[in-house]
């Protein structure tokens, strides 16, 4: 297992997250439908939706600029690169040293920057409302994310995700209050970043409650497909992130055998399925909150992250 092995794992991971992202969304939707006593569409429906969008023509608004056409590719690329750097089934990613957890956060911020700009490009009120609210949400979610990155980095003495996962897996980190706080904060940030209930409703049809949907209102055809796919990748990314940091069992270490890798893939699939079911359960059992309640929610996440960091500073020095 030299460079070739690492490259293989890296490409397998990139292909895997891309191929399975729509499935995960399909599973969440199906689980939600069953919890609401509906039959629900097949778990493969997101694939069909994407295929349909890719085959359709793109309808551009008359005054859409080149930025509007380029943005979906930038958004997709930044999200995919970020998702490729989060260990899913193995830690031996050959390019993991390219970017640490702070860079992954910042890559998602780049994607959001372009999405918010694209929302303002056509000059409609709905695009503006979406961009404005998205930036409000992100201005609180991003610091919260960085705070919990700090917490993890202080425990593992590294911001490198592979190293963090390795430390969580091997050395007896044990149960820690600050890690529990970080987990809660990470879940809250993940809910907000993926635009799930209670922050945003991915299946809303009421314009005034939309955030993400309002920004992409003018997109159609392949452009919309790229943005949808980026959104699905982001869900995989956050679930994998929670998985690899807080339940790292089953992750194949660097230089593992093929068997261990296969076990890693299975463990990852199981984690994803559990995560999807929990997300569906959470979304079904809670109501969407008003937009101006969101700062309280994310402010709590930020405070939890900061508290986790401070607790670590205190406990480290005792």
């Amino acid at each position, binding site marked *: 297992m030299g460079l070739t092995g690492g490259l293989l794992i890296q490409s397998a991971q990139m292909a895997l997250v891309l191929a399975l992202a729509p499935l995960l969304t399909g599973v969440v939707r199906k689980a939600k439908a069953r919890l609401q006593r509906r039959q629900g569409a097949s778990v493969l429906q997101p694939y069909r939706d994407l295929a349909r969008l890719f085959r359709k023509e793109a*309808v551009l608004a*008359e005054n859409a600029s080149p930025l509007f056409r380029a943005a979906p590719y930038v958004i997709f690329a930044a999200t995919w690169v970020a998702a490729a750097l989060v260990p899913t089934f193995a830690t031996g990613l050959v390019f993991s*040293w390219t970017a640490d957890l702070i860079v992954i956060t910042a890559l998602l911020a780049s994607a959001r920057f372009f999405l918010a700009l694209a*929302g303002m*490009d056509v000059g409609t009120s709905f695009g503006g409302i979406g961009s*404005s609210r998205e930036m409000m949400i992100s201005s609180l979610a991003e610091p919260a994310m960085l705070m919990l990155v700090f917490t993890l980095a202080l425990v593992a003495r590294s911001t490198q995700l592979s190293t963090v996962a390795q430390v969580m897996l091997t050395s007896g980190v044990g149960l820690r209050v600050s890690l529990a706080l970080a987990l809660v904060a990470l879940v809250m940030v993940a809910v907000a970043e993926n635009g799930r209930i209670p922050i945003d409703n991915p299946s809303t049809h009421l314009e005034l409650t939309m955030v993400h949907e309002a920004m992409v209102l003018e997109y159609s055809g392949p452009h919309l497909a790229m943005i949808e796919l980026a959104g699905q990748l982001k869900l995989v990314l956050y679930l994998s992130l929670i998985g690899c940091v807080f339940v790292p069992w089953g992750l194949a270490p660097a230089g593992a055998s093929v068997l261990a890798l296969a076990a890693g893939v299975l463990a990852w699939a199981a984690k994803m399925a559990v995560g999807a079911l929990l997300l569906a359960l959470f979304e079904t059992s809670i109501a969407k909150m008003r937009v101006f309640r969101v700062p309280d929610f994310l402010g709590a996440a930020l405070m939890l992250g900061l508290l986790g960091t401070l607790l670590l500073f205190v406990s480290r020095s005792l």
Partner: protein
Amino acid sequence: MLPFYPAFLAGMMLVVLADDAFTFLFGWEFMSLASFALVVSHHGVAENVRAGLVYLMMAAFGTLALMLAFGLLAAGGEGVSLQALSFSAMRAHGPTPLAAAVVLGLALLGAGSKAGLVPLHVWLPLAHPAAPSHVSALMSGVMTKVAVYGFIRIVFDLAGPPAWWWGVPVLLVAGPTAVAGVLYALMQTDVKRVLACSTIENIGIIFVGLGLALAFEANGAPAVAALALTAALFHVVNHALFKSLLFFGAGAVLVATGEKRMGMLGGLIHAMPQTALAMLVGAAAISALPPLNGFVSEWLTFQAILLSPDLPVWGLKMLIPAVGALLALAAALAAACFVRLYGIVFLGRPRSAAASQAREADGFTRTAMASLAVLCLAAGILPGPVIDALQGAVAPLVGVRMTGQGHLAWLSIIPVAEGRSSYNGFLVFVFIALSASLAALAVHAFGSRAVRRAPAWDCGFPGDDPLAQYSAESFAQPLRRVFGRSLFAARETVTMPPPGDMAPARLSVSERDPAWAFLFAPLGRAVSALSGRANAIAHLNIRNYLALVFGALVLLLVVLALWA
């Protein structure tokens, strides 16, 4: 204004070339006065004259503080001579701990007022927009950096080895400066004023790095101090690049449309595509997005913050993560601020006739902007050589240098240790470019290539007035509600006409700068009250004056007698 521009440049050069306090202060004052002349170059406008006056007062105050600081540093040497004022003489004897502490405070006041640290920032949002755009670019991109140089020269070099607590006041000022600066920027509606306020934020980020460097150096971690100082200096370089670029862009917009009010602009990406592209790079860089340069310096600062558990002092251990949270908040808000600026000015539909008739900027302006944009990208994807180049300044100040980064495999940077953290801007850039092209190729090969232009969908209500788009004010409204209420006392009042009345409803927004309300306004009132009292002395008759002189003489003699 023509002769003042080279004079301003010469003044800034003189400050950084100075090797003694006299030349330093002379250059500093020269720089201040020349830039004052440039700020009031359009002195027909009353607003500009007021901006110039506030700037002149703050500059005079800053020079006074620096003069006192140099006085303390030079004292203790033998005699009063030009020799005692040279930096080497100051270094040779070094101040007492008490004098050094006072020098730190004075440097923070003097250099901080020129750099724009909160609450001494009030001149900045007034003076930078008043000046012509190329002057604003210099003032914001370079002059504030000369102030940073002044601070580093006095505190890191001349004031001797730092005490353990020196980082505390710097961090306590710098963290809030970063957040307050970007919040100010979010509240502004004038393009150049937004940029000026964002300068305050970036100065805050730079001083966070400087404060970290002081804290680590004083507490026996010179290697981390080198990292923090490198991060601060890297941000100095970055801010000079992207803020100049953004001010040039604002100038190009001002020339093309005659407008710097965001509410009158919009849709300029169609008329000025090249300016828009360069500005997009600048906006992304200042929002600290990878793979551009702004991200690298913030990443380095975060790496230094993450090493703070190793510090032996409790106060610093608690303070530094809190400052880290403020820094993260400032970075996220900066992205919101520049989405707002770029989205309102360059995207959407034109909000006025001037904006719809804009023309692309001339070749010189475009070349200037394009070269700065290229430099932003280059410093972002090749951070190693930049870090290495900065070590020439870092090594003499903290005694050690960061390990060489330029020669590392694949152009990555590893500030502390491999396995702890590393970043590779080049590969991130290549990966993003590759996967974006791959996606575009796949869509073109397998998807539909058909594109049709149609009226905007807008949920079935297209064709509304361009003024119904989101504006600068409405974009900031959620953030104003979240952050502005307590900090800026931002209030929104809606006046509804009674039912049946056809008058339009009005929404008015008010906010105030706490620095003006709680510091400068009471100060101004106190000064004018005092001067009113003192004014009475100017209108006495000859007998009273003689009595005053006699009284002063007696007092002096009494003091002398008691002194002996």
